[in-house]
C-alpha cells in the first residue's frame, strides 16, 4: 500500500515539522490483487464437528469470502479514514499514525484511545463523532473530548518496528510523548485489549499530565489467582483458589476457560509470530485468524456473515474494513509480534496509580468483579457493569461505550485547571 504523507495543511491546523498530515491511498492493483486472491482461495475440507470447537468454521469463512469478493466496497476503509484528520509523527524511531480530531468545544478533555488485536483504529471510527461532538449525539458540550487515536507500532498505518523492544510499556511512553507534542498538559487515556494493557502501563508510569484512565478490559486478577490460572495453561490442573465470592468464581471460570482452551492464538503469536507466513500470503488465512479471537465475539461475527444478522455495530462491512486494512498494510505478522514482545500477564494487576475508571461489558473475556477491581486500582473513581457488548466494546456498542467514557471521566473534568 502506498503510505503517503501529503504536505497540505489540514482542518485540524497542526503545524509542526515533525507532525505530518496523512492520507491513506490504496492503488487499484492492490485491491484487484486482494480480490483475485480471495477468489483463488484453496480451501481445506470442512471441520469434522457441527460447531466452532475446531476453529473458525468453513461455512463462516466461505460466507465471508463470498461477501468480500463480490459485494464489499473496497474503497470503504480509505474513505472512512480519509474523512478524518490523520497524521504521522516519528516517535522513538518509528512512524506513528494517528487520527486527531479536536472538538469545537474549547474545554473539551483531551483523550487518547488505544485499540487492540485483532483490531485497529477501525474499531474506534464510530465513537469519533459522539466523543468530539457530543451535542450532535445526545450529549452535553461538557462531555466533549479532543480525540487522539493512534495506531500501535506494527499495526495498520503506523510503521513496523525493525528491532525488538516495542512492548506495552514503551508504547505507553510514546503515547505520553505524543500527547505532550500535541500540546496537552492534562489528558486522559482509554483502552481495551492491548489498548487496556498499554493504558494500564500509562497509569502505572503515572506521568503528571495523565489525569486518569478508563479501561474496558481491566487488569484486575489478583496475583494468587493469576498463578493458579497460569499453571493450568500447561495442564497442571491446580485447584481453584479457595475463598472466592460468587462473582470471583465466575471470573475465575471465565479466565480458566480462556487460558486452557481459548488463547492458543496468543500463545502461538507469543512464541512464533514469524512462522505465520500464511497471514501475509493468504487473505482468507488472515481473516480466519482475526475472527478467532474469542468464543463470544466469534459467535457475533459468524452471525453477521452466516445469518446476515449482525449484533449491533459488528456488521460485515465493519469486520471487513478491519481485515482489509490489515491485509493492505501487510501487518498480520508485525501486529502478532506485540505478543512476542509482551512480558506482562494480560489480566494481571499492573500497578496503576492514577485515578482509574472501569466499565465491565458482559461478553468480555472475563467480567472483572468489583472486589478485584478495587484492589487492582486503588484510586477507582468509576465502576459500572453494562448490560450488553462483547470484547470489542467501542466497535460493537459505540453509543453505550461513549456513554461510559463520558460518565467515567466526568469527575476528572471539574478539578482541571483551565
Amino acid at each position, binding site marked *: 500500500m502506498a503510505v503517503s504523507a501529503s504536505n497540505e495543511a489540514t482542518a485540524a491546523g497542526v503545524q509542526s515539522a515533525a507532525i505530518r498530515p496523512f492520507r491513506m491511498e490504496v492503488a487499484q492493483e492492490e485491491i484487484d490483487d486482494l480480490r483475485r486472491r480471495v477468489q483463488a482461495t484453496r480451501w*481445506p475440507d470442512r471441520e469434522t464437528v457441527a460447531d466452532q470447537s475446531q476453529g473458525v468454521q468453513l461455512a463462516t469463512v466461505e460466507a465471508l469470502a463470498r461477501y468480500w469478493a463480490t459485494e464489499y466496497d473496497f474503497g470503504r476503509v480509505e474513505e472512512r479514514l480519509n474523512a478524518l484528520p490523520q497524521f504521522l509523527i516519528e516517535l522513538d524511531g518509528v512512524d506513528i499514525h494517528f487520527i486527531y480530531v479536536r472538538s469545537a468545544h474549547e474545554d473539551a478533555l483531551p483523550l487518547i484511545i488505544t485499540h487492540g488485536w485483532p483490531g485497529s483504529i477501525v474499531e474506534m471510527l464510530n465513537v469519533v463523532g459522539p466523543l468530539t461532538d457530543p451535542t450532535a449525539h445526545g450529549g452535553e458540550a461538557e462531555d466533549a473530548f479532543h480525540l487522539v487515536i493512534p495506531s500501535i507500532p506494527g499495526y495498520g498505518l503506523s510503521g513496523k518496528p525493525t528491532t525488538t523492544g516495542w512492548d506495552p510499556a514503551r508504547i505507553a511512553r510514546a503515547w505520553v510523548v505524543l500527547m505532550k507534542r500535541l500540546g496537552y498538559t492534562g489528558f486522559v487515556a482509554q483502552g481495551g485489549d492491548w489498548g487496556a494493557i498499554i493504558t494500564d502501563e500509562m497509569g502505572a508510569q503515572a506521568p503528571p499530565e495523565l489525569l486518569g484512565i478508563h479501561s474496558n478490559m481491566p487488569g484486575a486478577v489478583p496475583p494468587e489467582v493469576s498463578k493458579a490460572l497460569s499453571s493450568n495453561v500447561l495442564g*497442571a490442573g491446580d485447584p481453584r483458589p479457595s475463598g472466592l465470592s460468587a462473582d470471583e468464581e465466575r471470573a475465575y471460570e471465565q479466565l480458566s476457560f480462556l487460558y486452557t482452551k481459548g488463547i492458543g492464538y496468543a500463545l502461538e503469536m507469543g512464541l512464533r509470530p514469524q*512462522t*505465520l507466513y500464511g497471514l501475509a500470503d*493468504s487473505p*482468507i488465512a488472515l481473516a480466519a485468524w482475526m475472527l478467532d479471537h474469542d468464543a463470544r465475539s466469534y459467535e457475533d461475527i459468524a452471525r453477521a456473515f452466516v445469518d446476515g444478522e449482525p449484533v449491533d455495530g459488528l456488521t460485515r462491512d465493519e469486520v471487513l474494513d478491519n481485515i482489509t486494512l490489515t491485509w493492505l498494510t501487510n501487518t498480520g505478522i508485525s501486529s502478532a509480534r506485540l505478543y512476542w514482545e509482551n512480558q506482562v500477564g494480560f489480566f494481571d494487576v499492573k500497578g496503576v496509580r492514577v485515578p482509574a475508571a472501569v466499565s465491565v461489558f458482559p461478553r468480555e473475556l472475563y467480567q472483572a468483579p468489583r472486589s478485584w477491581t478495587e484492589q487492582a486500582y486503588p484510586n477507582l473513581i468509576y465502576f459500572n457493569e453494562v448490560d450488553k457488548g462483547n470484547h470489542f466494546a467501542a466497535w460493537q456498542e459505540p453509543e453505550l461505550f461513549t456513554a461510559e467514557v463520558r460518565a467515567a471521566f466526568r469527575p476528572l473534568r471539574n478539578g482541571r485547571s483551565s
Partner: protein
Amino acid sequence: MSSTLESATEIRPFHVDVPDEALEDLRRRIAATQWPEKETVPDHSQGVPLATMQKLARYWMTDYDWRRCEASLNALPQFITEIDGLDIHFIHVRSQHEDALPLVVNHGWPGSIVEQLKIVDRLTNPTAHGASAADAFDVVIPSMPGYGFSGKPTSTGWGPERMGRAWAELMTRLGYSRYVAQGGDWGAFVVDQMGLLAPEGLLAIHTNMPATVPADVDRASQAGEPPPADLSAEERRAYEQLLRTYGQVEYARYMAARPQTLYGIADSPVGLAAWLLDHNDADGQPAAAVVAALERTASDRGELTRDEILDNITLYWLTNTGVSASRLYWEYKGGFFNAKGVSIPVAVSVFPSEQYQAPRSWAERAYPNLVYFNEVDRGGHFAAWEEPELFTNELRAAFRSLR
C-alpha cells in the same frame, strides 16, 4: 462388480499421478507469495526466518522436481483399502526372504510416509545392505487418516487408539498372523496404543519416542515446577529436556485447540511450509536436523536433504492435508510423554536429539516387558529420516529376540 462384503476388504493397487496443473498452480502460488517483512531478531527465536523461507521458496518453484519423489513412491508397491469406513493408503513390500518378520511402521507429524522411504529396502532386503537374511522384514507403511494419500475423516474419533485398531486389521487383512509395530512422533502414540490393545498377532512394539515419564515428573515438567528431589542425573536431564520441549510446543497446543482456523496452510504453500518446518527437537525450534537439511543438497549415507524436506511438504500441499493432519492433535486428549501402561514386549531406541532422552530407569518402569533398550550416538526426532542406516540397525537388533 464385487459384492459389498468383498469391496469392503478389497485391496486396490495405487499409483501417485499428480496432474501437471496442480504442479503449475503450486509454482504460480509460490511465485506470487506476499511476504511479511523480516523478523526483528537475528536468530530463530521469532519463528522460521524470512531469509530461510525465501531461499527455500526460490528453490521450490524453480529447480525442485516433484516427479522424482513421485517416481520413488511409485517404485514401491502401494495400495488402498477401506478400514473402519476410511480409505487407508499404504506401502507394502514383501521381503524375498521366507521367514521375514512382518512390520508395520507408522510415521508422525509433520511427516508422512516420505520419512520412511530410505528404510524400505534396508529392512526388506538386508543382504543387499550388509546384514543377514535372518534380519529381513516384510514392511507395511500406512499413511495415517487425514495424512498423505489416505482418506480424510469427515467425523470425529480417529485418534491413535482407533488407528492402532485399524493397523491391526490391516495386518490381519494382509495375512499376517504374527507381526511387530514401530513408530516415532504420532507413530509412537499409535504403537503405544497398539501395545495397550495387544491385538492377537502383535508380538512387540519398537518406539523411538518412548512415553516413559512418571506421573510426578510429568506434572512438574508441564507446570514448569521444580522436579521431584530424588531424580538421578539422567532423569534430571530428561526433566530439563521436557521443560524445554513444553516451552516450544505451542504449534501442537494450537492444532489441538483450533486446527480449522489454519486456513493459511491450505491456501498458501509458503504458509504450509513454514508451519511444517517449525517442529522442535532437542536442539531447538525449528528442529536442528531440518534446518541443517535445508542446506544439504546431496547425501552420502542417507542424511536428510533439502529435496526430502520438500518432498514431504509438497506431499502435504498436493493432497491438501495440512488441516486434516492437524486434526489428530484435536482428536487426542491424552498425555504426551507419560507412561501409558503397555505390558507387551517393548523395544526402545533413544536418539540423542529427540525431544527428551528417556532414561533407562523410566523406560523399565513404563514398559515392564522391555526387551531392548539402546542409546545411540546420533540422530533425533526424525530418526528413520535422519539416520536410516542406524535406525534400521536398531530395528534389527530390537526385534531379533522375537523371531
